[in-house]
């Protein structure tokens, strides 16, 4: 079945099983590999994208449910890797292995768009769905505060 997706402002037409998770459409069909696969069951956050302002786990959303909606992935956060969240992430050298970080950044971007000055508690809540096996959590927390300052 043909499905129309709008990813980072670009229209993509794909021929896909409507039940296929959005994650695989983004990665394999649209060729945007910044969004990662970690668990496939909405537990780790590696696949986080933003749809309608919300951080969404693309691994368990059927591609058909995303049709026609504006989807943002890590590649669409900025042209030059200079969104305040990205700058804060670089300044505080947040990533280690880096694999979880696209998802972390998408969750942080969604949080800051809805709440420009989050408290530690609000950061805890918004980021609880994103696992980082390298344990970069203290720097993630600090970088969200920093990005909030950078505005």
């Amino acid at each position: 079945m043909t499905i129309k997706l709008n990813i980072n402002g670009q229209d993509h037409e794909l021929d896909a099983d409507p039940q296929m998770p959005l994650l695989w459409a983004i990665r394999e069909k649209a060729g945007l590999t910044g969004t990662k696969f970690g668990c496939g069951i909405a537990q780790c956050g590696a696949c986080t994208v933003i749809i309608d302002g919300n951080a969404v786990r693309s691994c368990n959303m059927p591609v058909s449910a995303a049709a026609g909606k504006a989807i943002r992935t890590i590649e669409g956060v900025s042209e030059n890797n200079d969104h305040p969240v990205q700058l804060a992430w670089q300044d505080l050298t947040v990533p280690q292995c880096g694999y979880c970080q696209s998802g972390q950044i998408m969750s942080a971007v969604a949080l800051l768009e809805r709440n420009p000055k989050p408290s530690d508690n609000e950061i805890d809540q918004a980021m609880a769905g994103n696992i980082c096996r390298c344990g970069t959590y203290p720097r993630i927390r600090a970088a969200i505060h920093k990005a909030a300052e950078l505005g």
Partner: protein
Amino acid sequence: MTKTFTRRNFLKISASAAGGLMIGFPMAARAQGAAGADAAGAAGAEINAWLTIDANNIVSIVTPQSELGQGAFTAVPMMLAEELDVPWESVRHVFADANRHVNNDNLYVSTSTGGSTTVSRRHPYIMQAGASARERLRHAAAARWGVPVEDVVAKQGTLTAGSNSGTYGEFAADAAGITLETEPAIKAYGDWWLLGTEVKRLDVAAKTNGSAMYPIDVTVDGMVHAAVKACPVPGGRLVSFDFEAIKGMPGVIAAVKLTQTKDVPAFTDMRDSVAVVAESWYQANNALASLPIEWDLGRGASISYESQTAEALSLLGKPGTVLKDEEGNLGNKRDKGVNQDEVPGLIESSSKVVTGEVFSRPYEAHATMMAPAAVADVKDDRVDIWTFTQDIGRSLTEVADQLGRDTANVYLHQTYMGGGFGGGYNMFIHRQAAAISAEVGKPVKLILSREEDIAQDSMRPPVWSTYKAGLGDDGLPVALLTHVVGEEKQPGFSLSYVADMPYKVPNRRHESSQVQSHMPIGYHRAPGANANGFFVEQMVDELAQAGGWDPLEWRLKMTEGLEPYQRVLKAMKEKSGWTTDLGNGEGMGCAIVESHGTIAGCVATVTVSRRGQIFVDKLQYFMNSGYTINPLNAREQAESSAIWEMGYAFFGGLDIRAGRVVNTNFDSYSIIRLPDTPLDIEVHQENSEDQWWGGLGEPAGPPTPPAIANAIFYATGSRIRSTPFSKAAV
């Protein structure tokens, strides 16, 4: 033109006569968008196999170690740049070419990445490569300018002699052709300008915009996708599967049988498995779920974590094998001539006997965030593999052996690794992908589902332990008997560290036993020091308490004369606000464990609510690694390994039932998350700075769970003797 420059193996190179020549591999461009270029991505003249300098004076430095988040891609360039003397801003890092390494007599000495050794063990020859290149540049400039080499100064990418001046880039091609009579000595600590300063890791920017490539991101023309299922009980064999049942499913191309070659699962051997190949991974994985498969589960099917625990408890009730080296010593480096034989009698006749209860740690899976993946393209005349690994050279050779190919025609391309933690040593996904591609005759991308990743992991082995001690009139132990039960396949994993404990008990005896196991095990962030540090550092608190000693004072007393320990323990006492008497449900606990040449002390502060909820308020670390080349990364690594082990203290723990891992995804195998992480983590560097280099990728982990358990004891009076704490009986 090929020249052997020096006596030293590592400088055997293929020199480039003219600027711009670079030895790479033609396939690199096919890994689309590889951020962090392959060796072929570096332009310029190659002075030796470790570095090239281009016309703009950009220095590309080859890193043979894998980048798993620990910072090898920054540490190796730093060590070279220190000697080469170039502005750090002009340094780029490139992946080493595994084919070139393997086929040139281990050109980079070793590509193994683990045990926190990249800096500690490898700095002499890595720094040497930088120093040797710098000296060649000076000689090249001297020759062109007609001045004595002594007059040429090489500094920050520029060569000068009197009024002559030029960039390294202008002389790089000449330098490659220079033969030196003697190689320069490397710099000593104290002469450094770059090492010892805070340097941000070079790969950070690529990891904030999605451009860093992992094996799962590699695309090759004409590639198909595969999903794999291994026998759920490790060591079990494949009897049959029914491809007809799934043949008609969308996108399905083939099913491929993968075979374990040894009788029991072995290091990097494939397990008996079935792979389904399809046009997309989603289709392959769906079809695999519907594929009827019959397994012969083997002897492991009767083993569970519960049955192993029962066996361990019964073994702990009997004498074990006494740990002794050939001379009858404890087998560690420090203690010779310690009396072992009379220990049981001395305990019984002492003024106070302390009998420990059982401590334990369960199996754990690496569960890197990266879903393991590998791409293989097996053709008649060459083989290309893109994979993660903690040893590119070894993995390349394994694929060549498996396919019966000459290593000269096998190319293994590195990408970033989404975590490693030791798991990149015991992996076999590169073998699986190669076998599948060979069978279907197409390039294949194999991705493991999280469930298969955990089920096929080589786990951290469990241990169970206990002790008995006799105290003297001063309350300090005169004799100590420990007994650790590990599992049968690699007893050394569970024994390491106990005999190495730094405490000077005059009469000690260490016994061990093993339970039956079929579970594959492997390296996993400091296995022995973690399991046994948890045991030893709580035992010590119990001994201190029984003898009427403050636990930190006890450790200071029992390590008298060991300067590196004393330095850390004194810092813990002076800087942490140490007290065992916080009251109000609060407690402080300490622990100190040496691993990978680094001594790590931890002071934990916790609050336990009336309902029994535990909050870790603060973790303070005191690290002595001799030297530190990058204090920023050292702190980040300490935090990382600390949170890793704190995670295992509270969460984690694999459950094995009927021979198979039951909790194979993050819904049932819980991982520490951001809200669980203390707001306050401090890392203090207390380096002795006296000629040794400890590793830093792991050592902050081991003291963490025992320090927290000790803190919980001082908060509540109850001791937690097993992880995860959530399941422990208190």
